[in-house]
Structure formats: structure tokens, C-alpha cells
């Protein structure tokens, strides 16, 4: 009875579509990748917190006599074009860039999630208004919008945060809206309404936890894009105003000296790439679950 010979069963007239073959070729991020990404992000967060306290030099202290120095025991990464210690600037920039990036991703997350959930739940004309607004914002190319708003509002960190919030909330709103639209028709929501549970309580207790899952996943990957965007804007001179140390500004400042003092660009670039990948790895893993 436990014959291990199996005849190949006849195929049931089913053809395999190309989609199935392609789907199996792409492997999701494994546990190793996730842990690696998480480690990077945690270390980066630690750096952001303790950075200014462990920096050997004042990051803004200029010493024009030693400008563009090579890495040495006195200056581990040399000095930049104004004689400031590169290493100190690098680790202090972590707090600025990461701090602003986190906030610039968090505010849209909060705004978008709330607006999306409420609009989907109550529906009718409010929902219509919100979706039209979302469409309006999305119809602009993102950076054109961001740059125009910065130009209008003037530079500075506060402007950056406002601008990112205004532009970025829409993707959370769309995502959460679709989740809530689907969930609000579930029987247990109807049952809660029948029982007299208030709208607010339904939103917070029943819908929120489910909507949060997808929203949080988006937050992590979004943070990566926000970080890149922030750094790029700073590079262009539209982001974090000098003399505050930030990676984008550091790259911009060091650009004319790319040939000889290449490490002045490589160091901040490496930090951005590393943290960006860390965030990406975490985000992909959350997405896959």
C-alpha cells in the first residue's frame, strides 16, 4: 500500500501562463537581508542621536589654513573646502538629514492616513472631494511641485517639512482609502453599527489596525525616497541651508574638488547609499509579508 512509485499524472488540460514563470524568478528579501537592513537603520539612528556629542571637532569651525587636507590621524576624513573636519560634519549631518527625513515622512503619513481613512469611511461628497484633490496633487510632477513651493515659501527646514507634507500625503491617503473601502463592507463593521458603536470607535478600534499595517510598510520605503529627495534638494541648495552640515550640501561643496579630494564626496555618498539600502531592505521585507 505504500508503493512509492508514482506515475506522472495526466495533465488536466491546463496551460501555464507566462506570468507564473516570471513570478517565481524574483526572490523576496530573505531574513539575512532584513536583519542587515535593520542593523544599518538602527546604527544610523544611534549615530543621529549621539553624533554631535562624539564629533571630535566643531563641525562648523573653519580653519582655512588646513583646507582640503587628506585623511590623517588628526582629521580621519580630512577637511573640506573651508577647513572644517569632514568626519565631524559627516556624523553631525546624520542627525540633520535623518531627523528631517523622518519628520518629513511622518507628517504626510499621519495626515494621509487620517484623511484617507475618514474619507473612505464616510464616503459620498467628502470622499469625492478628497479623491479629486489627490488627483490634482498627483497631476504635478513631484519635484517640480516641491521646488516651486520652496521657491515661493523660501528655504529652511520648516518650509521643507511643510512642502513634503503637502506633496507626499496623497500616496498614504490613496492606499489607506482603498484598504478602508474594502474593509468597511465587512460584516463585522455592519454588526458594530447595528450594535450602536460610534463611527469614531469603529474607525479607531476596528479599521485603524488593519489600515495601519499597509500604511506603515509604505512609511518605511517612503522614508528612503524622502531622504534621497531631501539630500538632492540640499545638493541643489534648496534644502537644508548652510552652514548646517548635511550630506547633500557636503557633496555640492566638494564637487569642484572631485579629482583630488574624492573622499569628500564618497563619504557622504556612501552614507546615503548605505542607509537608503537599509530602509529599502526593511521595506521590501515588510511588503512581502
Amino acid at each position, binding site marked *: 500500500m505504500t508503493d512509492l512509485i508514482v506515475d506522472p499524472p495526466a495533465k488536466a488540460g491546463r496551460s501555464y501562463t507566462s506570468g507564473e514563470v516570471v513570478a517565481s524568478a524574483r526572490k523576496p528579501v530573505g531574513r539575512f537581508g532584513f536583519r542587515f537592513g535593520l542593523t544599518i537603520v538602527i546604527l544610523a539612528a544611534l549615530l543621529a542621536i549621539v553624533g554631535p556629542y562624539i564629533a571630535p571637532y566643531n563641525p562648523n569651525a573653519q580653519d582655512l589654513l588646513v583646507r582640503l587636507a587628506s585623511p590623517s590621524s588628526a582629521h580621519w576624513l580630512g577637511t573640506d573646502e573651508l577647513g572644517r573636519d569632514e568626519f565631524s560634519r559627516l556624523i553631525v549631518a546624520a542627525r540633520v538629514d535623518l531627523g528631517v527625513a523622518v519628520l518629513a515622512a511622518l507628517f504626510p503619513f499621519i495626515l494621509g492616513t487620517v484623511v484617507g481613512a475618514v474619507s473612505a469611511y464616510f464616503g*459620498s*461628497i467628502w470622499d*469625492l472631494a478628497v479623491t479629486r484633490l489627490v488627483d490634482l496633487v498627483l497631476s504635478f510632477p513631484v519635484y517640480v511641485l516641491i521646488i516651486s513651493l520652496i521657491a515661493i515659501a523660501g528655504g529652511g527646514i520648516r518650509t521643507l517639512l511643510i512642502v513634503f507634507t503637502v506633496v507626499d500625503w496623497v500616496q498614504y491617503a490613496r492606499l489607506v482609502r482603498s484598504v478602508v473601502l474594502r474593509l468597511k463592507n*465587512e*460584516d*463585522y463593521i*455592519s*454588526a*458594530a*453599527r*447595528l*450594535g*450602536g*458603536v*460610534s463611527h469614531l*470607535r469603529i474607525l479607531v*478600534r*476596528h479599521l485603524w*489596525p*488593519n489600515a495601519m499595517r499597509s500604511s506603515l510598510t509604505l512609511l518605511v520605503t517612503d522614508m528612503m525616497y524622502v531622504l534621497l529627495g531631501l539630500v538632492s534638494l540640499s545638493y541643489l541648495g534648496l534644502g537644508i541651508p548652510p552652514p548646517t552640515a548635511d550630506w547633500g550640501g557636503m557633496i555640492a561643496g566638494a564637487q569642484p574638488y572631485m579629482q583630488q579630494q574624492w573622499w569628500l564626496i564618497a563619504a557622504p555618498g556612501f552614507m546615503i547609499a548605505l542607509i537608503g539600502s537599509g530602509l529599502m531592505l526593511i521595506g521590501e521585507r515588510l511588503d512581502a509579508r
Partner: protein
Amino acid sequence: MPFLEIDDVCVTYGRLNRFVRRTDTSHVAVNHVSLTAERRQIVGVVGESGSGKSSLAKAAVGLIVPQSGEIRLGGEVLPRKRPVEVRRRMQMVFQDPSSALNPSLTVGQVVVELLRTGGMDRTTARSRAADLTDMVGLSTSVLDVKPGSLSGGQRQRASIARALATNPEVIVADEPTSSLDVSVQATVLNLLRGLADSLGLAVIFITHDLGVVRRLCNEVAVMHNGRVVEHGPTGSVFEAPADAYTRQLLASIPTISAVTSS
């Protein structure tokens, strides 16, 4: 005067988006339907898909506002937008046990929430929740468990406990056993029968299964395309169906003809 009266109710779909799109394809789901039910009575509503039976259920319970018609409970006309106290008098048991309870909350949390919405304090609510699980034949350990760990039959019973939390006078059961295995179906049906008798509930039992109706319901209404085509005591509808559709329905039911019970 009957306890529950559904009087000439019409439900139409497709009139959304008045501001943007005019839809001419509005669909009449429930077409001038009238139905009554007394306390301790189980009235069956039978129909196939598209007959409007689910829309009728939702309109009865207040989840949908009917376009026209009245629903009266104990002689009192229920307002179109029902306030909380009125909503709690009529509860629904849903078809799909897996979406009838919030998968991320324990059964206890769901039941207690409904009890507290009615003004009960936390301790009384917990003990009442235990009483309710008893009433539906589940052990109180069910309160600390999420619905995912329960079997289909247990989930449906928990669903009934949830419906009873508001001390309703009417239960509308929308195909409560259609997703359950036949060998556990009877526990839920017998439970409903028992509760109708002991709590004095009026029950409207929506189903596509005529076999169940015959055993459970005193009265039955057959729906087709939004209308009630036949209505009467179960025995006479089965033995002498007046309507052609009812006859067709009865003829299509496969029965295990070889089963004997003397």
C-alpha cells in the same frame, strides 16, 4: 397586531453619485414586499441569488434605508435613520462566519464592546458576556480567543452571542448555516429555535435551502426577482405550492430519496 411588520418595502440600488453621474440603470432589489413575524416564531424567506432576500434582510435591520415602505415593531413605526436604542432592538446574524467577527479582536472584546455601548460597566459586561457564551452553548474560554482559532460552527455561535448582547427583540439571520458543514448545521439551527422560544424572539430566517425551512420555520415566504411570490404556513407551501416558481424550486431540490426514517 403582529409584532414585526415589514410593510410594502422597496429597496433600489444605483442612485449614487447624484452630483456626478446620472444612472438610469437603477436596480429594484426589493419590490413592494410585506412580511410579518410574531414573537417565538421563525419566518423563513427563501430565494435564489438575485431574489432580493439579502437586501430585504438589511432593510429590515436598518443597514439600508428603503426607498419606500414602513417597518413597525410592536406597533411603533421605526424611523428611517434609526437612533442607537432602536438599532439595538433588531440584530443580524451574518452568513460568513469568518467575516462576521473582527479577526484581530477576541470574541470577548467584541461582545463586551457591544455591552458597554449599551451603558454597562466593565465588570458587569464581562460576566454578562460569560452568560451569553453559555446561552449559545460555548465554553467561556471562547471569550479570550480570536475567531481564527474557532471552528465554523463555533464562530457562528459566537456571532449569535454577539447579536444577543444588545438584548434584541428580533433576529434576522441571513443564511447563517450556508457556509457550515452539514453535520454542524443543526447545532446552530437548534440553537436559534431554542433562543426564539426561551427569549421570545421573532426570527426572520433567510436561506436558499428549502430543506432547512421545512424543519425550522413555521411560515415561509418565497422571493423571486424582488417580489414575494408565495407566502404561507410551511406545510401547505410545500405540499401545495400555488406559484409556478415555487413549484420549480421544489422540483429542483435534490433529496436523498433513499433515506428512511420510520
